[in-house]
């Protein structure tokens, strides 16, 4: 089973959702109503499923806004700073995040899949 399917299985279980409701592009908070306690469960389940050490701050992009604000203050390209600090995020996705920030939390299912893929590399 590919990484996306394994991540989706975990999310369906924890969030009590059907598979069809979860895609790579689902936003965790905006679409799936994920709360902070759910993220605790997701982190634990991913670390068990993939035998990886999950760093909550990185996988859930906890410092993304600060990261971008600091980069701007320092005159550094925010996209470059994201890719440098969070190596599992592809440049294209980092650009989307910067553009999307105003509409709410940007974390998507694909970001979890990318994180897992990066850790398993």
């Amino acid at each position, binding site marked *: 089973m590919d990484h996306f399917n394994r991540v989706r299985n975990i999310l369906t279980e*924890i969030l*009590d959702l059907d598979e069809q409701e979860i895609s790579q592009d689902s936003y965790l908070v905006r679409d799936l109503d994920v709360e902070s*306690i759910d993220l*605790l469960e997701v982190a634990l389940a991913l670390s068990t499923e993939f035998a990886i050490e999950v760093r909550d701050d990185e996988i859930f992009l906890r410092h993304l806004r600060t990261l971008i604000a600091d980069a701007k203050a320092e005159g550094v390209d925010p996209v470059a700073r994201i890719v440098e600090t969070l190596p599992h995020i592809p440049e294209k996705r980092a650009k989307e995040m910067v553009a999307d920030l105003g509409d709410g939390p940007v974390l998507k299912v694909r970001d979890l899949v990318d994180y897992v893929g990066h850790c398993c590399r």
Partner: protein
Amino acid sequence: MDRRVVITGSAFFSPLGNRGRSVIAAMEGNRTAFTRPGFDPDVVVAPVPDFNLKTYTGRYKNARYLNRGAAFGVAAALRAIKGAGLCPKMLENAGLFVGAGPNLDLGHGVNPGLSALWILKFLPNTPASAIADLAGIHGESTTLSTACATTVQVVGEAFQKVRQGGLDIALAGGGDSRINPGAALAYKMAGALCTQPGDPSQVHRPFDQARSGFVMGEGGGFVVLEALDHALKRGASILGEVAGFGASMDGGTMTAPDPSGQWMEKAVRKALTQAGIVPGDIDVVSAHGTGTPLNDQMEATLLGRLFPDRSPQIMALKSWIGHLSTACGVVELGLCLSLMANGFVPGVRNLETPCHPGLDFVREHRNSAFNTLLLQNFGFGGQNGALVVKKWTE
């Protein structure tokens, strides 16, 4: 002036069925749910068949934090609310009184890795949190844990609050399950379980001289208590009236009841006094009747003293559904409401040689209308609680 308090909603899950009708039908057919569990053939248990929390909650991701007992309580609360026809505004201001026991279901060794917040399965107020979330309750809430007297006290505390005018509506109840290896071990070591060999439906015999212990059951229940004026104003259907409540402590040993029953009597007399009645007014007693040698002897002594001249009809519902531990009080109450509505008094199962000669232990089912009920439960720790419930009349 104190207000009259009525019951306008009731729901339960029991090993013999989830509605009064189905439990009475099982009693009439002499069917029980007693069986020997795979994890320990020495003991007898009474499980609730086919329970699925999500039938009542719909999708509910926090179900993972409810132990089996808590899930019974949550589901019963939702059913009772629905049955009572409470609107969101009423629920917003309702009080929530919940009973919970220790969750002894440690599975096969403690494995904290199962869930990040597995502690929620062990915190007693998790069901209250779930019910408030699912039903939109924002009034006050208290979770009590007083062993087997828990839910009779939960109902009693809620009753006092409504009676005194602090709340118009209060939900009261809880759920419990001890049908797991951890609980079986604990109660077996305490010597409280019925471990007689033989047909599991024949070995449990409350108030019989040959009784030897209790049967672990499971389930849950909730009632909606409401100030009479409030209930009448909204045209609620009234299932019964709670007239009095009393509680007390033995202040003695941690497990064995005071053999004289003097402190249990104090709780019962407080309930009678609050209800404005004397012992002779009681038609039916729903006894704690666990089937343990010590409880039943004490309880028979107490009842003999309370009713020296004429004994009311005494039933032992645990002989049908087992001992639901902290949930026994509210489930027995819910069942009593149905028995009262149907004028049916079930016999005490397997009672051949009663442990007290002067008491009217019901041996065979009786079709007998009754109006005034005494419900009593006594718990480890010397916790005693008693309720007086009346059939509703204007």
